[in-house]
């Protein structure tokens, strides 16, 4: 099952599974939606109103940054490690 971890920088604003959580999903969208189902407040910190990745948030899948930042259709393998992190451009 893919695992998703969140940057500890988010903890200052909202409780989220920084240590990592395993959820099912075949795309980045699927995986994140499942996390947000249990942690609804986190959604608005990672995605904008249209469901796109916020400009200065980056999601890595096995070390590579997600390319489809609006649709989040990047595929996720069953053993994938996802990291939701803040980009350095937003500080």
């Amino acid at each position, binding site marked *: 099952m893919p695992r998703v971890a969140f940057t500890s920088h988010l903890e200052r604003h909202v409780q989220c599974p920084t240590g990592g959580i395993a959820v099912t999903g075949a795309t980045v969208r699927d995986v994140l939606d499942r996390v947000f189902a249990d942690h609804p407040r986190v959604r608005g910190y990672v995605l904008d109103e249209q469901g796109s990745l916020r400009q200065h948030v*980056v999601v*890595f899948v096995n*070390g590579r940054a*997600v390319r489809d930042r609006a649709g989040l259709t990047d595929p996720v393998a069953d053993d994938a490690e996802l*990291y939701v992190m803040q980009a*350095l*451009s937003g*500080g």
Partner: protein
Amino acid sequence: MGDRIRVATRKGLFTIERDRSGGWDVVATAFLSDHVSMVLDDPRDGTTYAGLALGHFGAKVHRSHDDGRSWEECATPAYPERPSDAGPDVDAFGREIPWKLGLVWELTPGGPDQPGTLWCGTIPGGLFKSDDAGDSWHMVRSLWDEPRRKEWFGGGYDHPGIHSISVDPRDADTVIVGVSCGGVWHTESGGATWDLRADGMWAEYMPPERRHDPTIQDPHRLVRCATNPDCLWVQHHNGVFRTVDGARSWTEVENVPPSTFGFAVAVHPGDPDTAWLVPAVDDDARVPVDGQVVVTRTTDGGKTFDVIREGLPQHHAYDLVFRHALDVDETGERLVFGSTTGSLWVSEDGGRSWITVSSHLPPIYCTRFVPA
């Protein structure tokens, strides 16, 4: 001994001078109300260069041949046109890199044997060179076309940028360049070819499998010891690093009080073991620790540090010092730094104590001693 300082700010360029009684004051202003991102006094011929960031009209470069009394616009680095059949130029996050000058972020003179040679670092990551003192610039394509540039991304700004260019005093064709976020690059051929030299740095902001990737390191500022040119210091996004082998390898300087986060660093021109930093809490809290502005200084290569407070505000002070806003003069005895609150401080004793020059300048981007 540094008696004169240029200060590039959000609203103009200021020249500060020390008078005979030891007082420091503003003696000249230029480009009042314009954003000045960078300034350089060329020690070889006394020309002063200023990089402007005109919000509406783009970045520009001006120069003065009379110590800043009068200025003329010279050539500005221009990005080339993208070939129409080229694929998209995107950064590591898929963001398109515009082939347009965003900001003049570093100006460095070439070697003493290269009159008229200047280097310019820019956002979004282009490196430029002039061989005619700013009459024209050409992009150093070898670095722009480097395939690993695709791994770069913005740090502090939306797009990557070259903020530090250090020419080896022994050989002007050997140059080291610092990129946020794109590691440290080195040439021995005046820019014809490059190798990546960031081994030993690590990135807290990356997933574990990418943390030691040299291509995505974020050195905030890179400085070289003039008399020991193989020794360089870097204030990085998540720590302080030092090399003693010309950047072939970097070692982390640990346990830096009160914090390892910051933007600026300076090294004593005559002593590679003496360096100064101006820390903030961390990248989430870019304010001084406990609201107290301090300068940290080491004289033993980073094994131990003094935390210096004398003359610096210790009560609800929220100054942040940007990467180009700390400088040391050619003797190592005088330093200057300026902050986001428009405050400017000078030290005449190697950083042990500080004098407030002003608390009311515009936000400060760059401070540089005028070479004696």
